[in-house]
């Protein structure tokens, strides 16, 4: 294994288990190092990708044929106006591209949101209640009850008293149960992330050895710093 690859593997393992070290409940310099390393590289990476996008998809066509790209040129001017945000004296100029950007975003979201998130969802809730097998009938009734009662729970414009209050309470219970399903599905997702991460840390054998060594170093290091050198630990922490 060449030295660069070896160093890369050591760093990747240290970053991984440095971040996991927060689970010990003790703030420690391994976690601080890993967190700051991640933040620094993430910001740098995002900047590079953004500039490459601008170079490839925006500036290059404008430079190649300015007369056919007047409108994209306007978008560049708006983007440059965005940069004035960093100046306290001229930050007001950035409001213009921000307004355009927000107006476009709000426009796109609402023009499609009505169709996809309201009409389509309501249509999908209007379900047949007869002429089908009993199980589907019961399921359809249940879905309609779930959706209607939870929608009523979320309405705040009138007081929820009397029958509306009772329906709202049913909606609250439906939400409890529904959150149980959502929690379990979210849990499924997080397990997948963790398993994938651990697969990377356990295979091949050389990586497994590295992992065990780094875990030992991080745990022992945190323990020794906390027990024997609390002042040093405090000085090494960012906050």
């Amino acid at each position, binding site marked *: 294994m060449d030295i660069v690859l070896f160093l890369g593997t050591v760093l990747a393992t240290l970053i991984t288990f440095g971040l996991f070290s927060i689970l010990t409940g003790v703030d420690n310099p391994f976690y601080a190092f890993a967190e700051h390393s991640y933040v620094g590289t993430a910001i740098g990476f995002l900047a590079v990708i953004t500039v490459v996008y601008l170079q490839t998809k925006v500036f290059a066509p404008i430079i190649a044929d300015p007369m056919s790209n007047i409108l994209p040129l306007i978008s560049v001017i708006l983007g440059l106006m965005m940069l004035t945000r960093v100046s306290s004296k001229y930050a007001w100029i950035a409001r213009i591209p921000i307004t355009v950007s927000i107006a476009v975003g709000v426009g796109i979201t609402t023009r499609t949101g009505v169709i996809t998130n309201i009409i389509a*969802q309501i249509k999908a809730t209007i379900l047949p209640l007869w002429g089908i097998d009993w199980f589907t009938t019961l399921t359809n009734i249940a879905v309609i009850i779930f959706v209607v009662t939870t929608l009523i729970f979320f309405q705040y414009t009138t007081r929820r008293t009397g029958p509306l209050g009772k329906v709202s309470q049913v909606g609250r219970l439906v939400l409890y149960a529904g959150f149980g399903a959502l929690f379990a599905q979210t849990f499924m997702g997080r397990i997948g992330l963790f398993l994938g991460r651990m697969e990377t840390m356990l295979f091949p054998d050389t990586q497994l050895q590295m992992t065990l060594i780094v875990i030992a170093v991080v745990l022992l290091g945190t323990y020794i710093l906390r027990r024997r050198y609390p002042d040093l630990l405090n000085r090494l922490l960012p906050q």
Partner: protein
Amino acid sequence: MTSVFEFLATMDRRIWHAFTFIIVIVLLLFPLGLPLAISAETQVSYNIVHALKPGDIVMINYNIAAFGWDELKGQVLSVVPHVMSQPGVKVIFLTDMDQGMIYIEQTLAAYGKLMEGKTSAPWYDVFGKKYLQDYVVLGYFPGATSAWAAMAVDFRKGAGTVDWYKNDITPFYNAIGIKTGQDVDLAISFDCTGGADNFRNHFFPVFGTPIIAGEIGVNVPGAINNYNAGQYKGIIKSTRGGAEYQYISGFKGKALLSMDAYSAIHVYLILLIVLGNIGYFGWERTRVKKGGTA
């Protein structure tokens, strides 16, 4: 007995964390090979891809960053080769996440061999599909929803006429005849943050484009909602969906092997909930009734 209940109710969470690591490490290193049932949604997604015809245009969006790659790689590394192995199908790769390009290149490198005379990405021959003839990589589009809306209206203007590597892709567009979102026959999105919504909002309502959404666990409830509403034609749910797709497509990988650890962690959580409730009924509840705090 009280002290046992108290211990169960107030167990140090670091013990739970330690056992989580131990269970996962042991079962990843020594899998048991338990059977796996295939869900209906994964089978439907497989059937859609398998039914692609020569000349069909498929858009594949990598709404993927490192935080979701470990969960989605099982499905990515089985769905993408499945699509690429369908004869005559033309594929357009793109991403709305800054890290997406890393994973597009990784996928192509995993299954492709470099074309003659070429030394690096994206010039791979993947199951006979050659770059710029059968597939292109458009690259990263910040402000995703606007970019997708632009592509739906006028694909070439929205996506640009150069790929991520600055190659002119107008001949590719002319060869496949793409003009608007109407010409896209299938949209697949591997999602960390709801990338399939871009297709759902801008392609599906206008053109009825079939969408397959490969989702991380957090997004699955919303995806099921859209699937039931008919907006998605198929969904692949998280790591388990990836393992199922690997199994039925034949492009096997680590997601399949990790299913034992996956099962064990689920059972472990149930056990913790049961133990916690035993402690609650045996100690915490009586303590609260006697006037203590919960």
